[in-house]
């Protein structure tokens, strides 16, 4: 079964062809990002005189450093709050069968269905009245609430499959429920915490619609909004735009390739939830 046959070889060839289709846009992206604007050769032809001027100009013109900082702040802040409150909430909801527990569970599950578009405009008004528009804090507050249903759902599914014996033992030893959660339950949740961390970090980092609404017109931008603004400003200077796109992709791919095993397992881990 594991012999390398002609069939395996042709399959390998087909799969590599698929990888080339996936890689083609990336090749063009890099090719044009390193090309001087005066070079008008076909975009598929390798650039003959590569230059890094586009990157320097994009970095200086686009205020991408500030956007990168905001994106890191918003993602890290949101993910910490989301994981803390969702895992804590999942604990009683998974363990207690009383009516209040079922009710809260159903309420949170309702949140899985509601598309954000419904809440977006009224919330825009609330944020405006509270003076929170245009600040990264509004985004952290926002994602912390928005991601609760999905994250709690992941934790509840995982908790229900965990035995209660350890918690009982800790209670008999005199731990309070909060101590049981902190020292017994939360450490056992590690696999699903990794999944929740990966999925939340990627969706917060990549979100465009929310910061487009809540940060529009301010100088505080996250990476996706800064890029959209950049494209709007340098309409057809594609070499410059491509350099900006590369700058925004590099940190994401660097983290991805460094932690690829945990990240891929994180995405696949939703399967068991």
């Amino acid at each position, binding site marked *: *079964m594991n012999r*390398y046959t002609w069939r*395996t070889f042709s399959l390998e060839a087909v*799969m*590599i062809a*698929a*990888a080339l289709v*996936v890689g*083609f*846009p990336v090749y*063009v*992206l890099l090719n044009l990002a390193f090309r001087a604007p005066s070079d008008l050769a076909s975009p598929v032809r390798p650039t003959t005189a590569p230059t890094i001027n586009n990157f320097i100009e994009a970095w200086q013109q686009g205020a991408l450093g500030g956007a990168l900082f905001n994106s890191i702040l918003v993602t890290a802040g949101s993910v910490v709050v989301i994981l803390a*409150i969702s895992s*804590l*909430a999942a604990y*009683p*909801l998974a*363990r207690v069968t009383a009516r*209040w527990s079922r009710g809260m569970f159903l*309420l*949170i599950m309702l*949140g899985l*269905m*509601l*598309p954000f*578009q*419904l*809440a*977006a*405009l*009224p919330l825009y008004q*609330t944020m405006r009245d509270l003076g929170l528009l245009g600040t990264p804090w509004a985004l952290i*507050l926002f994602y912390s*609430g*928005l991601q*609760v249903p999905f994250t*709690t759902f992941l934790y509840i599914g995982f908790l229900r499959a965990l035995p209660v014996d350890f918690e009982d033992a800790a*209670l008999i030893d*005199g731990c309070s*429920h909060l101590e*049981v*959660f902190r020292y017994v339950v939360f450490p056992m949740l590690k696999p699903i915490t990794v999944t929740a961390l990966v999925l939340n970090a990627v969706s917060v*980092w*990549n979100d*465009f*619609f929310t910061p487009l609404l809540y940060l529009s017109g301010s100088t505080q931008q996250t*990476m996706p909004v800064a*890029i959209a603004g950049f*494209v709007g400003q340098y309409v057809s200077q594609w070499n410059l735009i*491509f350099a900006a796109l590369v700058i*925004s*992709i590099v940190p*994401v*791919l660097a983290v*991805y390739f460094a932690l690829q095993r945990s990240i*891929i397992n994180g*995405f*696949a*881990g939703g*399967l068991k939830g």
Partner: protein
Amino acid sequence: MATAAIEQRREQTVTVSRRRRKGPPWWFALPALALFAFIVLVPSARGLYYAFTDWDGLDPNFSFVGLNNFRDMWHDPNAVQAIWHTLLIAVSITVIQNLVGLLLALGVNSSIKSRNVLRVFLFAPAVVTPIVTAFLWRNLLGPDGAVNSLLGAVGLGSWRQDWLGDPQLALWSVVGVIVWQFAGYSMVIFLAGLQSIPAEIYEAVAIDGASSMRRFWSVVRPLLAPAFTINLLLSIIGGIKLFDQVYALTRGGPGHATDTLSTLIYKDAFTLGEFGYSIALAVVLTIIVSITSTGQYVVLARNERAAS
């Protein structure tokens, strides 16, 4: 002295067992619930109310207009078209992305030498910001873009198209870009499903002499049921809510050829100031999401049970 200690110990045991019976306290859920209510529940409920008003987003004086927004929608060709596009995009993405993802997963799950590298590489686009990849594709798919250059270079010059400017084609270009980015996501979930199938099962059916097609259909496919459930739900809901890629690739154009419910909601609210009407569109979006996700979940869960 001794009896007092015993008494105290008994009291402790009683309180511990009561605590155990009652389980962790409800207020553990309070922080999550409070934020969720503030960010999602209350604004959604208010949204539901505004859908029946003529609110413009600023003026505190607005009036209740009953079902007028929904009736207007019925007579608004842009809205009807956007609903149709939304459904068409969601269904096409679901079918194509999962088919491609499944084939990739089967390929990567074989004994080819490059399988580990390919898995990491094929999944990579799924972690990149969608708005960024969409801007990249906007250039690639332009009249003088790399896709047309490539077609010219390999002698398929007659296949050149204005991929995003042709109203007949633009919607399918959007679908293509999304499949390009997320097929690897479906692949990873199918792959996790494939790898959870014990090797003995493969060996047993191989010994039975079943053809590989037959093996896949009657043995592997039913065991992949949980992966199908997740993948189909993720892609159809993602498709229905689609905003970023359309915004970056076409802004809903040319004309309204690629407008989805989400882009129309955005335009009506922030460029036309019709908040009430825009929220009524969001209510329609909510209804579509709820019906499809519950319906799909019920059907798939039944298949999953039947398969197990």
